[in-house]
């Protein structure tokens, strides 16, 4: 699922390992989600959205909603 996780992370000045540590997942997980190689579960999507204080759809682009 396309997303802007990388942009939000770098805006906060965090590297993948630091973000992973803060939300208690592996660095590889952050890498896979950022690279659009893995769709996160709903709880993980909400967790990331809450961390960056944005709505989920602002972080993960809804491919089913007409733009």
């Amino acid at each position, binding site marked *: 699922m396309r997303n802007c996780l990388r942009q939000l992370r770098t805006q906060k000045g965090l590297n993948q390992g630091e973000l*992973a*540590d803060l939300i*208690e*997942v*592996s660095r590889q*997980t952050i890498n896979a989600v950022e690279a659009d190689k893995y769709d996160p579960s709903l709880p*993980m999507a909400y967790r990331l959205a809450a961390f960056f204080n944005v709505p989920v759809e602002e972080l993960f682009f809804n491919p089913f909603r007409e733009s």
Partner: protein
Amino acid sequence: MEISKHRKKVLGAGALAFVAAIAAGIAGGQILRLGGGNLPFAVTFALLTFVLIAALLATRPWWNRLDDVERDAHTNSFYWGGTFGAGTAMLGLVAWAGTQSDLARGSLITFAAMTAGYGVFWLVWWLRRRGEA
């Protein structure tokens, strides 16, 4: 290199699972030697099953501490890689020892038990996720 909090938790639980697997192997060996190796089948089987369940339960903290992606990686690897690896070994044993051999029978029993275990867990998994229609 600093180890992350998540990695520490997973590694700690993984170490417990590893130690439990080794302990289960040792315990299993001791059980097979009990009574000079002449315990009734039912008793031996029950004791070994108990050890297996205890070892599996000891791996639960490790499983629970994995994040979504890590767990999905293990689930996929176990299903595709594990099934292919075990299937290949079973077919190899049958081809090597013949269809009427003890190895072939053992392979068949193992495959049937894996299929039955898979079916039971699959059913329980869906039953636990049923909601109101």
